[in-house]
C-alpha cells in the first residue's frame, strides 16, 4: 500500500504547481506601465496633455456636448459631462498605458499614452 495516503512528495508536487501558477499570474497579468500623457480626440481636433501638469480642460464635442477633463496626481478623469448617460464620468480615473475613457455622445475619446507614443506635449 505504498501509494496510498499522503506523502511528502504530494506536497512538493502541489507546491510546484502553485509556484508555476503564481509566476504565470505575475508575468501575464502585470499591470501596464504608468502613462506619460493623455491624448484627447474630439471631432474637431486632437490634443495631447501631459499627466505631470495638473489642470482642468473643457472640450466641446458634437451636438453641443461638453466634457471637462481633470488631470491631478498623474491621473486623468472626466469631472463633468452634460451627456445623459455619464459613462465617461463613472469610468473613473485612468493613468496606465492604453487605458481609455470614451464619451460616445460627444464623440470624444481620451487615451493614455506611454513613453514612446508622446511626440509633442501641448499644455
Amino acid at each position, binding site marked *: *500500500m*505504498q501509494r496510498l495516503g*499522503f506523502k511528502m*512528495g504530494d506536497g512538493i*508536487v*502541489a507546491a510546484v504547481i*502553485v509556484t*508555476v501558477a503564481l509566476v504565470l499570474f505575475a508575468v*501575464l497579468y502585470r499591470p501596464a506601465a504608468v502613462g506619460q500623457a493623455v491624448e484627447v480626440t474630439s471631432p474637431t481636433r486632437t490634443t495631447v496633455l501631459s499627466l505631470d501638469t495638473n489642470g482642468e480642460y473643457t472640450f466641446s464635442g458634437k451636438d453641443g456636448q461638453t466634457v471637462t477633463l481633470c488631470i491631478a496626481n498623474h491621473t486623468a478623469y472626466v469631472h463633468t459631462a452634460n451627456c445623459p448617460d455619464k459613462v465617461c464620468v463613472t469610468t473613473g480615473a485612468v493613468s496606465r498605458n492604453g487605458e481609455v475613457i470614451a464619451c460616445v455622445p460627444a464623440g470624444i475619446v481620451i487615451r493614455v499614452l506611454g513613453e514612446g507614443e508622446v511626440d509633442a506635449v501641448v499644455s
Partner: protein
Amino acid sequence: MPLFPKPTSPAGRIALLGLWCATAVALSFLEGWLPALPLPGARLGLSHLVTLIALYSLGLYGGLTVIGVKAGFALLRGVTAGCMSLCGGLLSVLTMYLLQRLCPHRVSLLGQSLAGAAAHNMGQLAIALILLDGSLIHYAPWLLLFSLFTGSVTGTTAQQTLPLFRRLTGGFRL
C-alpha cells in the same frame, strides 16, 4: 506487495484493458451530466483516475491505450476536441509514469494525480493556443490552480477505488 497485481495471461491483460477503456469512456460521458464548473471549458476529468489505475495494473502501454481510446471518442466531437484530448492525455500519462518510475516511494496516487491533472490541462491549452487563439495563454494560471482541485478529487477517488478494483479483478483470477 504491488498496488495492483498485473494480470499474468495475455487474455487477462486484454480483458483488463477493455475494462479500463470502457470505464474511461463511460466516465467521461457521465461527466457531461454534471453541472458546469466555474471555469469555462474546464472539466473534472473523472476518467483520469482510470488512466492512473491502468498505469498501475498494465504499465505504460495500458495508460497510453486508455488515452488513445478516449481521444478517439473525443474526435467524434470535432478535430480540435480530439487533438486536445490526445495531447493532454499523452502529457498527463507520461508525467504520471515518470513520477511513478523516478520517485516511487515519495509520491502517492494523490501527488501523481495532481501532476497528471496539471500536465493534462497544459497539454490541452497548448493545442488550444495553436488551433484556436494565442490570447488563451492568460488562461494558463487559472487552469493550473484549477488542476489542484480536480487532481485532488481524482487522486483521492483513485486511492479509494483502487483497492476495490483490485478485489474485483482478483476475483476474476486474471
